[in-house]
C-alpha cells in the first residue's frame, strides 16, 4: 500500500520540452507536446502515483513536488479467493507474504490481487498498488514475474523508458552456467528460494487479531 501525498508541478519558464519526465513516468501520466511552437505539459493527476521520477530526472529542474490531498493505492486481496492468490504467487516463485517492494512494504499477495483484478501491464500494476512508485528500481522484476506467471503479454512502450523486459530468474539457469561457475552457488540459492516459496502461510498471531 502506498499513500500518495505529493504530485508534480511544472515551472513552464524552466521547461525546455525535452520529454524526459514523460519517458520516466511509470504510469504514463505526463504528456509533453509542442503546439504552435509552444511547449505544453499535461499531467493526468488521476494517474500520478507521486513517485518523484519526473522531478528527479528533469535536466532543467523545472519540476517541483507539492503536497496534495493524500490518497491510498492498494489492491484489495479480500476480493479474491486466497487460493487463487496463493497459486499465482507460487507460480511466480514468490511466497504470498514475501515483500515485493521495499519502499511500500507491499507483499506478493497484493501484487497477485492486482493482476487477478485485471492489471495487464506494469503501469497498471503500479497504479493499482503503488508498487514501483518508491525507488522505481528494485521491484521491477517482481511486477514482470507476476504478469509473466499470469500469461499476460504486453508490449514494451515504443520510444519510452518505462520498462524493457523480463529477465532470468533462479529457475532459468542452465546446467552449463552452474557447472562452470560454482563460486556463485546457483543450486544452493535456488533451494533457499524454493524453501521460501514453499513455506506455509501462517495464520495471523492471536495478539494481532
Amino acid at each position: 500500500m502506498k499513500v500518495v501525498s505529493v504530485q508534480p508541478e511544472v515551472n513552464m519558464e524552466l521547461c525546455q520540452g525535452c520529454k524526459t519526465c514523460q519517458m520516466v513516468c511509470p504510469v504514463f501520466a505526463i504528456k509533453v507536446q509542442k503546439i504552435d511552437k509552444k511547449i505544453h505539459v499535461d499531467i493526468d493527476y488521476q494517474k500520478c502515483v507521486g513517485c518523484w521520477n519526473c522531478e528527479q530526472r528533469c535536466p532543467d529542474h523545472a519540476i517541483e513536488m507539492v503536497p496534495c490531498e493524500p490518497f491510498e493505492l492498494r489492491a484489495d486481496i479480500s476480493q479474491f479467493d486466497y487460493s487463487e492468490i496463493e497459486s499465482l504467487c507460487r507460480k511466480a516463485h514468490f511466497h504470498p507474504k514475501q515483500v515485493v517492494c521495499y519502499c511500500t512494504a507491499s507483499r506478493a499477495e497484493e501484487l497477485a490481487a492486482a493482476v487477478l483484478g485485471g492489471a495487464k501491464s506494469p503501469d497498471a500494476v503500479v497504479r493499482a498498488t503503488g508498487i514501483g512508485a518508491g525507488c522505481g528500481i528494485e521491484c521491477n522484476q517482481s511486477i514482470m514475474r507476476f504478469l509473466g506467471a499470469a500469461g499476460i503479454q504486453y508490449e514494451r512502450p515504443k520510444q519510452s523508458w518505462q520498462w524493457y523486459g523480463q529477465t532470468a530468474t533462479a529457475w532459468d539457469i542452465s546446467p552449463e552456467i552452474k557447472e562452470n561457475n560454482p563460486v556463485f552457488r546457483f543450486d544452493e540459492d535456488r533451494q533457499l528460494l524454493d524453501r521460501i516459496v514453499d513455506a506455509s502461510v501462517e495464520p495471523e498471531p492471536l495478539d494481532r487479531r
Partner: protein
Amino acid sequence: MYPDPIAPMEPRESQYGVEPQYVQKRAAQLKGMTSIALRDLIPDFPPIIYPNNEGEGIVRENTEAALSGIDFSKIKPGHTVNILASHHGFTLLGGKPYAEMLRTIKDVVERETQAKEVRLRAGLGMRFRETEEYIKAHGLDEYFKGKALGIAPIDAGIPIETKLGTLYGLRKAYDADVIIHAHNSDVREVHFHRHVDRAVKPFGMSYARCETRSTYHMNLGPRAANFVARSIFDSDFVQSKYGFSVFMIMSPVGVVSVDADNDLYALSERVAVGGLKYYGKIINLLGGIDEAIVVLDFPCPVPYVFAAGVIYANMVCANLDTFDLDNPLPPYTWYTETFYDDHGQRLIPEIPPVNPAIKMVVHNYAWTGYPATFFAEQTPTIMVGREQAEHFNRDPMNLNYMKHAVLAEDLNGAMEFAYNTTKTDKVIIFDGATGGVNVSPSLADHLKKVAPALNEKVDTTLMPKWLEQRNLNVELLENVA
C-alpha cells in the same frame, strides 16, 4: 586517559538530507566520548597515501603510476571515451581523492591517445541527483568541459545479450567507442556482493538499468546474484567497448594506492584479497561488540553511514560471518528483508536475525533516498529532530520509517532515553571519523580487550577459508601491502 573524539565528517548540503543547520549537535560532542585509533586495534593495516598533509597530489601521482602500465591501444584517434564512475567513490573521505583520480584518468587518456572526447558518466544508487551533486561539488563539470553526467537506472536503456539472456545497461554509459571502469575497492556492501567478483559489480549495478538491478536483488538469490555483473561484463557488447579499469584501493584507515589493469579479472582478484585482508578484521571486530547503542551521524542513507572505515550495514550483519560463502543469507540483504511476513515473523527458521548487539539506534543524521524501514523495524530507533522526521515522511522510499521509530527533540534527550532503556553505556558513532572510531570509553576498553583474539582468528581460521571459497591463491596475500 582517553583521547578526544576525532572530528566527524561535516553534514553536507543535499536534497537527500536535512539542511545542515538542523544537525544541531554531533554525537562526537557528547560529554565523555572518546576515540580509538584503528591501528591500535588492528596493527597490520597497510600504509596509506591519503589522508595526508599535502592533499590530493599523491593520488594523482599514484594514478599516473598505475596508468603507466596500461595498454591504451584500443583508444584510436577520434574515438569517444566514457570514464564510468560511481557515487560510492565520492562518499569516501569526502570524495576529493576519488575526484582527483577521475581527473587524472582524463588527463592521461588525453595525453596518451588522440581521443576526440573524454567524458565522465557517473552512476548512482537510488538518489537520482546524487552524482550530479558530487559532480558540481568537485568541479568535475568544468573539468570535463560540460561532459560530466549522472546516469540513473531509469534512464534510457540498451539491451545486452549475455549468458543469462537479455539484460539491460544504461545507454549513456555505453554511448562511446571505449569505456574505462573507474571505481574503488571499499568493501562496503559485502552483504550483497559477498566479495565475489567485487571489482566487476558496477556492470550489474551503477551502469545498469533497473531491470538488471532488480534481477540482482530479486531474481537469482543472495550469492548467485553476483553472476549478473559477470555476465554483462563478459558480453560481446561490453567487451567490444571495454578498455581498462582503474581502482582507488581502500582500507578502513584510508587510501592505500591506485591500481589499474586492462584485465579486470586480474584486478578483481587483487581487490578481493586486499578487501579480505583489510576489511575482514575490522568487520569481524564489529562482531565482537557484545552490546552497543549505535549513533548514525553521517551524510549518507542509513545503511551507508561510516564508522571504523566501514558502513552501518556491516555492523547490522556483524553477528554472522558474511565473507563466509557457506552462510547463504546475511542478516540484512534485500533477499533477507523480503523473507519476513507482515507480522515480522521469519518465513523460514534459518533467516538470521539482525545483529542483536545493537540495542538501540539514535538517528542523529542520516539521509533518505534508500528504503530503510527494515532497519527501524528490526532495531529500536530514535529519530532526532522533527525536521528530519518530516524529511523521511516525505521520501517515497521511507514512508513507513517513522511508523517504527520514536522522536526525540534533540540528541541529548535521545541518548538519555537510550541509556536508560538499554542499560548499556557502550556507544559507537557512525560519523565518518577518519583513522579511528568515536566510541564511549567502555566500548573503547571492550574493543581493545577483544581485538587480539579476533584478529588471530581471522589470520589463522577465517582467511584461509575465505580465500579457498573464492579460488584465490594464498600467495596473493603477499602481493598486497
